[in-house]
């Protein structure tokens, strides 16, 4: 369990949130020109690394807004939280 600072509501317990997986995955501009393998790569394949990862989160039991988070998956240390559409504050 850890505390997440929702960009809209403030600090809340992690149990109020749900993780939406890896962030900043761009939808292919011409999906019809992709092979099945390339489409599957975009749709299903995620890095799921041990270390600093960019993720999408949803405050499901609060304001129900989506936002992005930079989290170290090995120790749940949150490096940054930023709204959808904003650029990541860390690289």
């Amino acid at each position, binding site marked *: 369990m850890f505390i997440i600072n929702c960009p*809209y*509501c*403030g600090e*809340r*317990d992690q149990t*109020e949130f749900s993780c939406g997986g890896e962030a900043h995955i761009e939808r292919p501009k011409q999906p019809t020109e992709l092979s099945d393998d390339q489409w599957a790569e975009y749709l299903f394949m995620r890095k799921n690394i041990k270390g600093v990862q960019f993720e999408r989160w949803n405050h499901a*039991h*609060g*304001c129900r*807004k989506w936002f992005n988070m930079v989290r170290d998956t090995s120790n749940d240390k949150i490096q940054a939280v930023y709204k959808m559409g904003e650029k990541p504050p860390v690289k």
Partner: protein
Amino acid sequence: MLSFNPPIKEEKNYNDLKIVEIEPTIKINLRSNKREFSTKIGKILSILPPNEANTSSGNESYSLLWLSPDEWLIYSNNVNNTLDNQIELENNLFKEISKLNQGAVTNVSDHWVMINLKGSKIFDLLSKSCPFNFKDFKKKKGSVVQTVLNHVDVIMHNKDQNELNLFVRRSFSEDLWLWINDSARFL
């Protein structure tokens, strides 16, 4: 009076804790991200929707709760509203907001059940199964929080010192009511 069939039909008193369902009350959900929205609500209700997170505004007749940057909940403070009052308010809002594409107006009177909790031990009770930190919430009159209580989604509105209104979805209300009463016995 509105013809509601309340799911909770009793009032409970425990050691310095009073729990009762307040019905009938009008509840209307508002969604909008347009600039003119606040002015329109101000004209209809004489209350401006709060822009600050986790806060509320209100007058004698209505309270307006912040739910998210583009969502608010109106509920009536007066249980003596007639069905005509409800229809009139909903129609006014619909005419000024939904019809002009300024946002969405949804009547959620039957969706939410409002439980009033009074007494010095309400936060002891809630802390038994709520991950939210009530430290600042209980000091600030008019605070609003959406969180989970015993795994059930709730909205809490701090009415006054040692008094809050708790909104729970109708289908979960009986379950939460039983949990509240069960937990209150051990305070």
